[in-house]
């Protein structure tokens, strides 16, 4: 489903090159729930960004569903993300000028999906926000915002869900709620999930774990 071949990422830090991800080869089979763990700055989010095509690797190839995404144009990547990849961020990244319901509808509207309205409502119901659909992000709590973000990630029913520290900005009870939702999604839809976290308890629920430190994989636990 997801395959990384000798993928690395180097950025410029001032005038010095800084390698944030050393060459990494990895395969994540369809339907697996993988947790990527490691301390801050270990390259976890970078890895996630490369899988989603949000970022370009300095070397190597990323394949999603057999397609080498590193050779795709910006627009083709956008299309791929819209259809195949849902993304949840630590800081939610909802569009502040849109209501919860509109935030969830947007990916479906972009993809030209039929009847985005009822599906958006169903997704909000699924994450427990039935009565909050017409609130703006600024009117929602952190936990609620993250649930909206989760509903948005599921909008086009993607086979892959990438979550970057989805509980990192939440209190423990809201964090637990999000984790339960992720587990439910994994079970009910068979979605491939890659979860980045530095919380060992969270990582424990995953099928497999990948431990990163200083841009290198130090441990793989199946």
């Amino acid at each position, binding site marked *: 489903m997801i395959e990384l071949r000798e993928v690395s990422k180097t950025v410029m830090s001032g005038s010095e090159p800084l390698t944030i991800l050393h060459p990494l080869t990895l395969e994540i089979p369809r339907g697996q729930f993988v947790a990527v763990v490691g301390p801050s700055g270990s390259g976890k*989010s*970078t890895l*996630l*960004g490369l899988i*989603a095509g*949000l*970022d370009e690797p300095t070397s190597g190839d990323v394949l999603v569903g057999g397609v080498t995404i590193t050779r795709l144009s*910006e*627009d083709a990547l*956008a*299309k*791929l*993300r*819209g*259809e195949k990849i849902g*993304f949840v*961020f630590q*800081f939610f*990244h*909802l*569009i*502040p*000028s*849109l209501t919860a319901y*509109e935030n969830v*509808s*947007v*990916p479906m*509207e*972009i*993809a*030209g999906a039929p009847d985005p309205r009822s599906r958006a409502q169903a997704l909000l119901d699924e994450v427990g926000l039935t009565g909050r659909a017409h609130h703006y992000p*600024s009117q929602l709590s952190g936990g609620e915002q993250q649930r909206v973000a989760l509903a*948005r990630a599921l*909008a*086009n029913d993607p086979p892959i869900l990438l979550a*970057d520290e989805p509980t990192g900005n939440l209190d423990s009870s809201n964090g637990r709620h999000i984790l339960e939702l992720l587990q439910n999604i994994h079970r009910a839809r068979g979605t491939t999930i890659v979860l980045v976290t530095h919380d060992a308890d969270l990582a424990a629920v995953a099928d497999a774990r990948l431990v990163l430190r200083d841009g290198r994989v130090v441990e793989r636990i199946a």
Partner: protein
Amino acid sequence: MMFVLRMAGRETRASWRRLLFFFVCIAVGVAAIVALRSVIQSVRAVIGGEARSLIAGDVLIASNRDWPESARAVIDRRLAEAGATARTETVETPTMVRPADPAKRVAKMAELRAVQGGFPLYGAITLQSGQAYSHALVENHGALVRPEVLTVLGVNVGDQIAIGQAAFTIRGVIAAEPGRRVGGFGLGPRVLIDFADVPSTGLLGFGSRADRRLHVQVPDEHVDSLVTTLRRELRDEFITTRSYRSTEDQIGRDFDRAENYLSLVGLVIVILGGIAVSSVTRVFILQKIRSIAVLKCVGARNAQIIAVYVLQVVALGLAGSLLGVAIARAAVAAIPFALGPSSTSLLAQARYGITLSAAAQGIAIGVLISVLFAVVPLLQVRFIKPSLLLRDEGRGRRRDWLSIATGVVVAAALVAITAWQASSLRIGLVVCAGFCGLAVVLHLAGRGLVAVLAPLAQARSFPLRHAVLHLSRPGNQTRVVLLAVGLGAFFIVGIRSLQASLLDEFSVQTSADSPDMFLLDVQRGQRDAVAAFLSDSSHGSGEFRLIPVMRARVAGVSGREATLNDVEDVRQRRPSLGREFTITYRDHLESNERVVDGAFWSSPATEPEVSVESGIAARAHLHVGDTIRFDILGRSISPRITSIRDVEWRESRNGGFVFVFRPGPLDQAPQTFVAPLRGPRDPASRGRFQHDLVERFPNVSVIDFHEVLETIRDVMRKVTLAITVVGGLVLFSGALILIGAVAMTKFQRVYEAAVFKTLGANTRTIGRMLLFEYGVLGTVAGVIGSAGAVVLTWGVSKYALEIPWKIPAGEHLAGVVLTAVLVAVIGVAASLDVLRHKPLATLRAE
């Protein structure tokens, strides 16, 4: 597509308040375009439809001297051939009118029109009393006058007035008459008398400037051929022929030009709004960067996102334009109220409303300019990477070929729009180049001044230090505010300074002992008596001179550069020589003259010689040694050019003549005299002086420069007011842009204010910071506008008006101070809620 439409709707819903001011700015410009075009089109419809009544006939044949018998014969024959159905003659001449009652010692220059029974063939004369006009009203020494005559002369209907040597009874007051030009510059109010009574006035004597007119009614199909034939056959006479159609065409051209030029003013305001839209789009995109990254993350393509924002700009541009049309509609509807119910001018007859074509043009321009100016900054959307959601990375603005190519297309489109509005590619290019130049200069000046102020960033005062730093903060609106406000200040200060210089110049000319009255039409036989009258100190006039004048036409040139054989040749190849000239002869140079080539004579001679003014000599390629053939009242004389003179026209009241002859050959030729003189000081004795003079010499006309100056002042006041209103609109747009800029950057200020408050700054300190920031910004804008005005007045004074260049310090100082205060007040007022926000809530939200 659905996504684009929905998203554009949602974005507009969320941000229209912040973008409102920029589009109100577009609205102001569109309103100016729509209102100006509509009004001019309405007035044009009235006047264009009245072309026949403007010339009071289908064809007008006119001459400023007696009809030669031969010409009369030609005209009679051709009119008969063309099947003319009616004809009527009139005579028009400026002359003095005075009360017949000798106790009332006043006189006034008036425009006399003597009419026959058939007048007017088209249109109507209306009287204030409501009585219908009939020729019987003027028969047997009756007169109809404009109301000004009654007030100035202190007479009423039923009283008698003297015109020339005859007395006339006022039988009515004219409310409107055909053929009176709108806003025309007349020498005096109209007086209407019977054509048959003209000889009794003695005004058609030798040298009279009376205009003899023949108004003709001919079948429409013969109008053009009649005009062509008469023009060809009367080419060598001083006779002009025109039809209502050529009048209509001329009026059409004048109105086209007025409409196109004036609406450029509106376009400038729209473009200013466009520049603001461009600047605000840049900030807007900067603020939307995360939302755009999110959209890309969930699958949106660049084209879709750009389309969302273009659509938003179109929607707001359209809304602004529609608002502009509404404003124009209200403004135009108010015109009849402004003119007053009793206004009798042609302007009052127009039906004031918005014309469809003006509204369509306004809307098209509003939307086009909005989109054109937004599109280049919107292209930056392509460089926003979704990865910034994961990692905050530097995002400098980038240039690429697409941006540059789009910039070129946008520039070309702007030139095209301007050319379309001005109906001239050349003017389109000139205006666009001028605007670019001005924008670059203002931009550079702004940068320079901000750089000059940079040391203030080290100032001791905390608020001042931060105020200066704010001017160059990222995403600042300093440049666009400077451009908009500076441009407004430039217009207003520039025009007011020019007006001050001009008025100053005129008062210099009327002060001192320079002549302030001018006598015309003094006959040779009256010369000594007039001189005696003027020398008599009891009449109160000062120095005077009597200058002999003749009217002449250049009928040929035989010279180094050209040989012109006849009048037609002269007209075709040297148009500057084609008009009629007033010539004189004398044996000396005036103080305002200087010989630049050849030598001026000092004694009479028998061979004719002429001295030519240097400007016309240069234009017509005349040189010392060339011979010019003049036609002076039918007499041919061919003097050799023996000198070329520079004439200081500003000081020409003692005599500014293009052609001065050597005394001798013309001494005995038929001639009249003009006399520049210094009139009595106070208005009452000036009135008495004119009255007494005209009483003794009824054919003599007096031009009072004080009255002329008053008229010029009045015209200048109106022009200045009009341009100040335009400048005011630009400044108003500048204020809107300023409010908009404050609104756009408020989120940043609220955050900074919160941090400052947390660090111990109180509301007063932050208030002072804002006051300093906008005070400095306003001062810089004022200085830029004022400096621009200095350059403008220099150029116009030196090259267009040829008057000494002055800097009215008061106007400039007031301009800078008022601009600074305006910007400071608006800036602080628009930022008030920055002061009110509680810091904790703000910091938490971040």
